[in-house]
């Protein structure tokens, strides 16, 4: 089964570089996500793999076999790449029944009528659409249409599955169900999959690994945990989830922690670092709101260092947690806690391990 190898892709539209030296490798059976805001180049990357965009430079190989190589002018036509793709609009052919939609790729491959019927029904079973084979797309719900698109992409056993924002047209409830369902299916089939989304929740919950992209440049590649907990830079920290950014100067170094002075409020803040930073250099640290520990100012606390005094400026109840906007002597922080804190004067503890240096 194939591994996808994308190397040094460059795509320009006029003066604009839509893809700037994009490289990554997707392991066999992996669910790999391209995550980024709209216009970041994630769809261009996917369409380059599918064969609907022609990059100016770079190389794409599936299972060791090059399907695109700018240097040797190799550009296999989309129809000869044998990839399965689900489009954002589903692109279910409106003039064909569900059965015919799935049969089309097999007719192109000149399967016998009997084999074709068997295979289509097998896949309809797999995507839970067996009772609907005679329906036309307009008689189906959005979720069912999406499964038709998925079935159509799977019916010819493609080497790779490409998903282009497949959940963005579903409503919130259905979207969550579809995610689990697709993830399970992908896992069962062991199909190497590239998934494009701008929704960080989707990316974190489904992927084996995530590639975060912005302005055509790869920002970080890592597991969902790595990307969330140890963002490589400010962009990744801000794009994936909510974040507090604290900027200060490096005052010293102790064990695996840097000591950072961030204004009046946060002097001597301990921050976990991988390498010792230059003393007196400027440093920006990202901390997730749910990593902050908020307690009433009077409570006895086991945390003494990295604890700031703050005033609550607003509280919002969000069902499973409370969100606090805090003012720690001029430093604005957002914190989340499952507990309600009674007073307006609070202590905020910033665990050194929850801090990631982003700049």
């Amino acid at each position: 089964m194939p591994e996808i190898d994308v190397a040094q892709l460059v795509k320009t539209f006029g003066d604009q570089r839509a893809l700037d030296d994009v490289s990554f490798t997707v392991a066999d059976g992996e669910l790999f996500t391209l995550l980024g805001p709209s216009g970041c180049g994630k769809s261009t990357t996917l369409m380059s793999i599918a064969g609907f965009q022609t990059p100016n430079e770079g190389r794409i190989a599936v299972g060791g076999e090059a399907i695109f190589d700018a240097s040797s002018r190799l550009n296999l036509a989309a129809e000869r790449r044998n990839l399965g793709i689900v489009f954002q609009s589903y692109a279910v052919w409106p003039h064909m029944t569900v059965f015919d939609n799935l049969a089309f790729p097999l007719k192109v491959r000149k399967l016998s009528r009997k084999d074709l019927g068997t295979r289509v029904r097998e896949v309809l079973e797999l995507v839970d659409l067996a009772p609907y084979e005679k329906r036309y797309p307009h008689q189906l719900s959005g979720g069912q249409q999406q499964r038709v698109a998925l079935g159509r992409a799977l019916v010819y056993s493609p080497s790779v599955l490409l998903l282009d924002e497949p959940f963005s047209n579903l409503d919130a409830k259905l979207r969550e169900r579809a995610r689990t369902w697709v993830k399970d299916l992908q896992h069962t089939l062991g199909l190497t999959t590239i998934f494009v989304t701008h929704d960080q929740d989707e990316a974190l919950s489904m992927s084996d690994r995530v590639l975060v992209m912005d302005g055509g440049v790869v920002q970080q590649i890592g597991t969902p945990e790595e990307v969330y907990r140890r963002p490589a830079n400010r962009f990744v920290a801000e794009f994936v989830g909510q974040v507090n950014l604290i900027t200060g100067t490096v005052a010293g170094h102790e064990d695996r922690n840097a000591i950072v002075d961030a204004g009046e409020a946060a002097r001597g803040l301990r921050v976990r670092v991988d390498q010792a930073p230059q003393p007196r250099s400027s440093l920006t640290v990202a901390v997730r709101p749910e990593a902050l520990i908020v307690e009433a100012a009077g409570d006895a606390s086991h945390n003494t260092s990295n604890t700031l005094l703050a005033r609550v400026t607003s509280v919002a109840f969000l069902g499973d947690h409370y969100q606090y906007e805090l003012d720690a002597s001029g430093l604005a922080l957002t914190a989340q806690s499952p507990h309600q804190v009674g007073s307006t004067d609070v202590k905020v503890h910033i665990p050194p391990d929850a801090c990631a240096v982003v700049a």
Partner: protein
Amino acid sequence: MAVVQKSIALPRPRRPLLPAGALQAAVWILVVGLIVGPFIPMLYASARDRPLYEAGGILTLEPYRQLFSDGEFWKAWANTLQYAGLTTIMAVIGGASVAILVSRTNLVWRRAFGRLILLPILLPPLGLVLGWIVVWGPGGYLANLFSQRLHLATLAIDTIPGMSLIEASRLLPVAYMTCEAALARADSSLEDAARSAGATPSRVLRSVTIPMLRPALLNSATLIFTLAVASLGIPLLLGTARNIKFVSSYLYLQWTNAEQPDPATVSAGAMMLLVVATLLLLLRNRLLGAEARYVSIAGRAGRNAMLPLRGLRWPLAITIALYLTFSTLIPVLGLALMSVVVVLTPLVAPWKLLTWDHWHQLSTGEFHRAIVNSLEISLVGAILATALVTVATLVAHRSRFPLRKALPFVLLYPRATPGLIIGIGFFWTYLLTWGVGSWLRGSIWGIMLAFCVRNLPFAYVVMYPTLARIGEELDRAGRAAGAGWWRTCRGIVLPLLRPAIFSAFILMFVEILCDYDPALFLVKPGNEVIGTTMLSQFIQGSVGPVAALAVVQVTITLVVLGLGARLFKIGVTGGHDA
């Protein structure tokens, strides 16, 4: 959940026998060759010292020198510009007014007017002109009736303003359609906002609606001006008798009636006309910008609040009704009446002169041949042209063929090219292409080819908006599934395009049936078509049978369009996006 069993060995998709690029290139070459090709022999013919059918000869600019030194030619240009200018002003003001009234005000019967106003452009142009002449022309029925019985002078239609009026009534729908489409696209909440801000309806019109229409006005004005410059029927039928020559009729008469026909000079004149038409088309493309070039069929949902006309609701409706009556209904009725009386004169009551002789003539000789020939070439031509335009539109918008971007411009080019130039171009082309050419020249198929090329743009403008609404992901899904370009087109795009293909066919049939001017240079005894027969017989004075023939043409047109509209409605649902 069942695991996908690979119970069946799935082969990889195979390469098609014919690479898609070859098919795309062939279509591209065919389209460009058919549309641009005929002008090359014409250019060649215009720069020779003798006609191409005479042996020998050298390249020279003598024909141009001769043409430019002819005072008549420049006078014809002056007349043409005056005629086209007047036509443009009348047609644009009229068309835009009706469009605003119909789509933005509470005019009475506005829905019916919105449909009826299109009639002049759907009816055969030549038939309509003959109708005008029969009724309003010098010695025309109503013109005589008014002057003799009521002592009221009617407008002399054989003057330049008179001819412009007829041309304007024919081209008014062009302005109407462009403005109506612009209004349908524009958000009417812009107008509602102005009214909320305290503007009166007339103020809203002046300050919001009309300024928003400016691009549509400029666009339709350029097109109407070009079409008026290219017009031949009205100048020939009404101008010639009064010795008012226009560029088109000047060239035609030089070709046919001069004591010493001079094809080289005529070709030079045609080249000049072609250059002017091309410049106007380029100007229009510049005015339009890339996006707004095509009218989208898709309407906006929701109804607009209508500007109240108050006391003018009825007077304006009656004005439009009168206009339609005098410009369209009466000429058509005049033709019908003319076809069943010996002579049409206010001196004797028509029912005393009833006769079926004119209609009997239609079943014999040239008239009969013309009807059969026209039906044949309309049917075959519409099928061929629709097929070609369909594939060409796919190449232009749904392929990666390197030269595809040129196709939309080329496909629209004949719209602005005067019919007589296409006729002259094909005449020389047939002359220079040996066996095939001489076969085409001697049969109705040569005329069919010229008519097809002339009317290709209509098929394209019908086809493109529908194609644009078929999401590109639908055919990408086909490609990803393993189907090649042509297989994807056949299996996915063409079935979805079916309603548009059908309406393009209907439109092509009607346009070819009603066309006439390219054929004037190609027609020979035996291969007459309805248009050329009407023109030549009318000039020879057999008005009655010509009127009957025009009634036949009008009837076929209306029946085919009506049938098409009915069938078309059924097919529309197939074209929606996923």
